[in-house]
């Protein structure tokens, strides 16, 4: 993609994107409707695509949240009981109510997970950190957010290294699902251990760069908040407010 041609999404202030994602997540809890969830998800894919990251986004979703959702879907459809039996085999029964419940729950999770993944696809960590600090968040708080976020890419990178090491010791790591699952467990312990050690060293690294020093920071490349962003944030919050109030009125009536 041409860098000088900035997409609309990448021109937005990181906080605006954060507010958007947060509104989306909250709204899902109030509507709890799988059609709304699916529409949201489609919209998120479209947003990622408009920023030239559609493919990468779908790939991330498939590799992470999707697997989790399939598992939860299966578990919920079997565990939830009801009166309309759809399918029955031995001790396993699926009820119509179970399927509905499972569909609603998994689409909700899809939106929540998808929204968080979207935020990091369309926002640079650096920009997000700078704008959070700019809006008055303390370096210690941003540090907590940052180190949580870093655990995942760090684990990904390290797991590649560990897989290599296990392979050279003769552990099969490629092939069908069963082979991969078997390879997964011997890789897990060194991964978790080295991630913990890595986190400690990285904390020292940030400390060494005066990340938590008590001075007003400067910023070479500060993302710019605009009037457009402010209006957009207000619109998003107002829409969310309307949704919540509407929902409460419906409950009371």
């Amino acid at each position, binding site marked *: 993609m041409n860098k000088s041609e900035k997409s609309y999404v990448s021109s937005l202030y990181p906080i605006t994107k954060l507010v958007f994602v947060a509104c989306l997540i909250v709204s899902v809890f109030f509507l709890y409707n799988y059609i709304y969830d699916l529409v949201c998800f489609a919209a998120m894919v479209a947003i990622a695509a408009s920023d030239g990251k559609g493919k990468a986004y779908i790939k991330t979703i498939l590799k992470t949240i999707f697997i989790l959702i399939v598992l939860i879907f299966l578990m919920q459809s079997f565990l939830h009981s009801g009166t309309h039996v759809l399918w029955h085999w031995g001790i396993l029964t699926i009820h119509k109510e179970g399927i509905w419940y499972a569909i609603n729950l998994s689409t909700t999770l899809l939106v929540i997970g998808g929204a968080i993944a979207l935020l990091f696809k369309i926002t640079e960590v650096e920009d997000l950190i700078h704008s959070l600090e700019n809006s008055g968040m303390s370096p210690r708080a941003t540090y907590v957010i*940052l180190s949580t976020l870093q655990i995942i890419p760090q684990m990904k990178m390290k797991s590649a290294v560990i897989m290599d090491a296990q392979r050279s010791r003769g552990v099969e790591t490629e092939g069908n699902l069963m082979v991969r699952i078997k390879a997964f467990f011997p890789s897990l312990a060194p991964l978790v251990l080295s991630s913990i050690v890595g986190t400690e060293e990285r904390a020292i690294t940030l400390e060494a760069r005066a990340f938590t020093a008590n001075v007003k920071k*400067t910023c070479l490349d500060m993302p710019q908040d605009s009037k457009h962003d402010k209006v957009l944030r207000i619109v998003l919050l107002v829409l969310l407010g309307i949704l919540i109030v509407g929902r409460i009125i419906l409950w009371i009536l």
Partner: protein
Amino acid sequence: MDIVEVRDLTYKYPTSSDQVLRGVSLRVKKGEFCSIIGPNGAGKTTLCNAIRGLVPHFYKGDMQGEVLINGQSTMDVSLADLALSVGFVFQNPFTQISGIAKTVFGELAFGLENLGVEPDEIRRRVSRMLEVAKLQDLAERSPFEISGGQQQRVALASIIIMEPEILVIDEPTSQLDPQSTEEIFEIIQLMKMQGKTIILVEHKIDLVAQYSDHVVLIEDGSIVMDGSTDEILSDPAVLQHGTSLPQFALLGIEMRKRGYRLDKIPITEAQAVEQIGGYFTEKAVD
């Protein structure tokens, strides 16, 4: 006054069963290049952690004795403030990347931004540092997408750019090839020429011989030898403490054993040429 003074330091990690440092005392003068050598597990990294203040601020545990930086005890200064006078570079290049900056340029700028340095001044200093560390071509690359040797140079440069008076560098080259090792040492040498005080842990003894002024040998948590580089690295006693000597020193010691008279044991190539080469020319003249 010595810029770094360790006074009778005894320390035990919260999880270690034994004392890791036992009564360590050490003085490093301003502008000196001091190398710490010794076998694995001797306590070299722990001593660095103490000088940087990570012991006891970060690692807790039992500490007796004290570490003075410019006459001030590390106990009385916060880690963040200590970071301004003591820069610390360690072994693993990967964990020394902040993970925040998008580019190598941003990575170098990061520390200065945190200190609130003016943007123009930051740009000037980063450009100069990129040049010194030979990183110009990588300025716009992601710090995660460069080689380990390049990452180590970025890590070193990111600390140096903050201009600490003292640099504590723990085995910076253990994961690097000879070429990258050379590059790291060139940068360290340059810092020495700018008057920085350098404390280096390094197993590559020939490089220690070539660059340092002062050598300290640690074994089992105690300093067993401490003196000038020439004095320590020409002493066969070093071999009794699980540490090697420079190849030229070994040659010199062997030659003495066989009856060659050398004025002094050479420890670097230059000294060897002078001592041994001189011997042969004299012989040839005889």
